[in-house]
């Protein structure tokens, strides 16, 4: 199993992590898509077990692509984004150090828990969704925290929910395929954690993993009911919640438009959106 995962990851994970652009589009548009306020780093892991993952991520220039993806952002300070071994399954944002950290441990955990190639969960969530979508949603969640901090965004609800919302909203702005893969992945991520620790912690700053599943799926259904209607048909998103998802999506859109969009270079954003971002396993 591990060998299969490694081979799969070697073939495509890094290519697909965060929206690798198609080769043709990349050659014409890539030079303009830079953000001088984002610095990236692949920290070499101490443990040999993450060495392969580290090499793949680095070779496939995952963070370079992330930096391109985030090029329209006008940041007042430099944000560091790094992959690192953390000795815990985690990702975080440090306001003290102005850095986002994604742990190899987390990606490794998701690789190990992702469903087999031909056995999508509930007939919905594929292996590709589980790994690629999880990583994209986790990175964007942490970048969301960074934006709230760096741009001094007013957050009236819980910041952790807000970071899920900003990640989910961004994931829905790049067409149906990317929306499907990433929302599916986020749902898988939180279903997995819900299974791993079934006792809910209501005192936590985070919503429970179960609640976070619905946050992502509801945003997806609210933003694009057609693409996510099977979640309602299969009763994975209860109709009672589904009825309000359009409002939830609109609430998030309004918050994004009011508080984040003023810090986005609209011309560059159009370039980023018009690219043919590819989340396929083999990068073709």
């Amino acid at each position, binding site marked *: 199993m591990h060998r299969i995962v490694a081979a799969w990851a070697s073939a495509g994970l890094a290519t697909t992590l965060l929206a690798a652009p198609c080769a043709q589009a990349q050659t014409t548009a890539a030079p303009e898509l830079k953000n001088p306020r984002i610095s990236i780093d692949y920290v070499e892991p101490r443990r040999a077990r993450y060495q392969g993952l580290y090499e793949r991520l680095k070779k496939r220039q995952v963070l370079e692509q992330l930096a391109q993806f985030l090029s329209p952002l006008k940041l007042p300070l430099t944000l560091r984004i790094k992959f690192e071994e953390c000795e815990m399954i985690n990702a975080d944002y440090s306001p003290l150090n102005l850095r986002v950290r994604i742990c190899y441990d987390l990606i490794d955990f998701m690789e190990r828990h992702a469903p087999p190639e031909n056995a999508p969960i509930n007939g919905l969530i594929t292996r590709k969704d589980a790994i690629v979508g999880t990583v994209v949603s986790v990175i964007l969640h942490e970048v969301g925290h960074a934006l*709230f901090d760096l741009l*001094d*965004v*007013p*957050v*009236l*609800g*819980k*910041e952790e*929910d*807000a970071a899920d*919302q*900003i990640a989910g909203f961004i994931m829905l702005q790049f067409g149906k395929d990317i929306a499907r893969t990433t929302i599916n992945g986020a749902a898988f991520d939180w279903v997995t954690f819900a299974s791993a620790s079934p006792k*809910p912690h*209501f*005192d*936590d*700053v985070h*919503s*429970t993993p*179960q*609640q976070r*599943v*619905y946050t992502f799926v509801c945003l997806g259904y609210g933003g694009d009911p057609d693409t996510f209607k099977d979640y309602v048909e299969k009763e994975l*998103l*209860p109709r*009672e*919640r589904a009825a*309000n998802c359009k409002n*939830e999506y609109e*609430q*998030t859109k*309004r*918050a994004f438009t*009011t*508080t984040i969009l003023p810090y986005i270079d609209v011309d560059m954003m159009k370039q980023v959106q018009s690219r043919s971002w590819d989340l396929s396993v083999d990068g073709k």
Partner: protein
Amino acid sequence: MKLIVRATVLACAATWSVAITTPAAAQGSPELRNSQIETVYVEPKDTAFTPIYERLRKRRVLEQLELFLAPLRLPRKVQVKIDQCGAPFADYKPGGPVTICYEYIDQIEKLAPGGPVLFGSAWITTRDDALVGAVVITVLHEVAHAVFDLLKVPVWGREDDAADKVAGFIVLQFGKEVAWRTITGVAWFLSQASENARVNYADIRPATAQRFYNILCIAYGSDTKTFGFLSPSASGQTVYLPAKRAEDCKYEYAQIKSGFEKTIMPNVDPDLLKKVQAMEWLK
């Protein structure tokens, strides 16, 4: 026992929601009223709620809300009503009205303690405060939904959490006594309501237990001295706020304060606010 409880409830009715002692203020100066807020007590069809309806009317709870919200500049009128909903909540829809349900107030009454709740030798909350605190937060929570809508406030996070945090933040701006009585009162209600409550994880609303921690956390974050009994070191076995949550409560309070100042405060008349803050509430 039943009679005693009923007598207590009747006695408590006198203190329901933001009662003002200052005679002039009680009469209400013409400027101290929010003309954009229209309030209605809808007579409940179910006679079981009639005593609540009558007490709320007698105590002029909604009239006091109009006074309390005098500094808030709203672009158009919104109705705030107390009504029988057939459920504890009636979801706010854009444009209003704001509805506070007799069913929810009935729950608050039923879960209020029979007398003072002690923490060691000191009291934490009383029956009166459990009623007043929960009603005040409920009303401000529901009004917050309308404020988000009418002022087009950007809301990140669950809107119900935002409404709770705004309500909690507001009651913390009226001195230590108001802060203590409302926060400990609503905390009692949420604590009781969350016991054995079935949690619907798919619900748009947070679990009641989550509301309890959210409100206590911003209270503790606002004033770790006044609310020091909530800290993990002071609360001992009770553990009102676990250490992991408590350590970030100052940040959580600063965040809602900053969010409130950026999004709602520009629509608050500062002179009228000072007048409202100078009044004696909950006496």
